[in-house]
């Protein structure tokens, strides 16, 4: 028995060590970003590299701040996220309810459009979407950024799965009372699906924030870019000035990170949830 305990202890120690090494590997690039951002250019390319800055320099942040219109970038990114989430929640919850709970002719045909979209890689739409936005004169605007994500096939699918699973008798009383489906949706179903909506919102926000190809082509002028595409635009121009690039990356990292720190539990649960339903 004692030997078994010993073995268990060693097992735990090994697992702990691996998890800690893994954790340090995850954290190191971020630490290195911050350390580099605080160094002078000369120190950043010193060999051997200094683990801690000899003298802390904040002028890299100043330079980064001047190189990119960060206030605009933050605003654009937050507006992109806000509108994408707003439209995804409204359209997906309504359509998800219709597909999951209302019987109407052509329902399956229409729902197959949702399934088809989920199978197609988004880049297959990107040239026509770009031509549309260009033709409408929307290039370099928030509208252009939001445009391809006005509706969410994945969101519709996710909400439909949820509404489909709710027992039928919940709304029977309401139907006998003469309530129409929209009232049932608004008064009974929406409140029930709060967790799903939070999960969908987080999922939509994350992927809007991380998108790169569309913001790069839709908005070419710097003050209309997102944080992602603007950081990407630093390549070439500031390529060798690593402390400045690291400072800019550091400044750009915060919007989603702060949301994550505050709503950590929802993030983790939301992602796990979209996985289990998807």
């Amino acid at each position, binding site marked *: 028995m004692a030997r078994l305990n010993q073995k268990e202890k060693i097992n735990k120690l090994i697992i702990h060590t691996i998890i800690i090494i893994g954790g340090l590997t*995850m954290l190191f690039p971020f630490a*290195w970003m911050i350390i580099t951002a605080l160094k002078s250019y000369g120190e950043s390319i010193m060999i051997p590299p200094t683990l801690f800055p000899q003298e802390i320099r904040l002028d890299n942040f100043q330079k980064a701040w001047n190189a990119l219109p960060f206030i605009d970038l933050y605003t654009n990114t937050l507006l992109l996220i806000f509108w994408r989430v707003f439209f995804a929640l409204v359209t997906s919850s309504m359509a998800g309810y219709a597909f999951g709970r209302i019987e109407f002719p052509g*329902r399956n045909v229409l729902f197959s*459009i949702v399934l088809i979209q989920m199978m197609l890689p988004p880049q297959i739409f990107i040239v026509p979407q770009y031509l549309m936005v260009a033709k409408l004169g929307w290039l370099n605007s928030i509208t252009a950024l939001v445009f391809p994500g006005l509706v969410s096939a994945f969101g519709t699918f996710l909400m439909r799965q949820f509404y489909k699973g709710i027992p039928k008798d919940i709304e029977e009383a309401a139907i006998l009372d003469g309530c129409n489906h929209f009232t049932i949706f608004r008064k009974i179903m929406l409140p029930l699906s709060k967790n799903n909506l939070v999960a969908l919102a987080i999922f939509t926000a*994350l992927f809007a924030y991380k998108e790169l190809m569309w913001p790069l082509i839709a908005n070419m002028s710097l003050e209309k870019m997102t944080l992602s595409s603007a950081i*990407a635009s*630093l390549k070439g121009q500031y390529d060798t000035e690593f402390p400045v690039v*690291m400072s800019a990356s550091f400044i750009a990292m915060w919007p989603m990170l702060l949301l994550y720190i505050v709503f950590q539990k929802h993030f983790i649960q939301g992602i796990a949830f979209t*996985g289990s339903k998807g």
Partner: protein
Amino acid sequence: MRVKSVNKQKASNYFWGYVMSAPSIIGLMILNIIPFFYTIYLSFTESDGLSAPTFVGVENFTRLASDSEVWLSVMNTLYYTVLSVPLGVFLSLLFAVFLNNKIKGVSIYRTIYFLPMVVAPAAIAMVWKWILNSQYGILNFLLSKLGIDNIGWLINSKMIIPSLAMVTIWSTLGYNLILILAGLKNIPETYYEAADIDGANGVRKFFHITIPLVSPMLFFVLITSLMAALKQFDYYYIMLDPSNPAIDKTQTILYLFYEYAFTINEKGYASAIVLLAFVIIMVFTALQFWMQKKWVHYE
């Protein structure tokens, strides 16, 4: 009276069914379905996006078939996928199993592993570009301490794809881990207790209980990782400069698509390339769904 009210009920159902699904369906039609067919149309034309496209028949596809640059990019994409997906999913599973133990601070580790997911890929790419810098990068410095000489991570055409696969594994580990961990949490404790009574060891329990019961989630993670890998563009775009001579030898198919669509501005040929990418993704997804019968257990 009753018939009338049933009819009325039906009419109301139809009405709300159409009205409530309309915004999504109209949106999908305009944003996705019509563009999909327009891409197919464009692939039979020559187009700069400004003047009207000229119909050229199957010219783009015959050009595609004999374009070694395209096929090299397909091979690069597959190579990148083979390097990043199996190892990435395996590591996620491994760490998920570790974190599923009753150890202190699990939620802190989970938070840390998930971090790269909430940082823009652009910022991640910039940091790794700096870490992997062959002259001043910290990684080469650390390796030099171990006696390993200067590796051109992002310069040497043999190293670029493995480097980017490594960054991909690092940045997606947490996301996949969260999903697999959710799957592990759903396995009833009683299965393991029964196995303990039968005297099964850890390895047996892992292969006979954990893997089969988590296999649907594992399959989901595999499919999403596969689709993401076959669509890789972001890290290439940021970490490799267009002036990098190795880029022609290492670019992925979607990077090539972007170049043709928006830099070289041959939107017709670009459409043919993206359709090829679509076919490849479809084939691999279908293959996965076909193979899942052999190893995925649904209850």
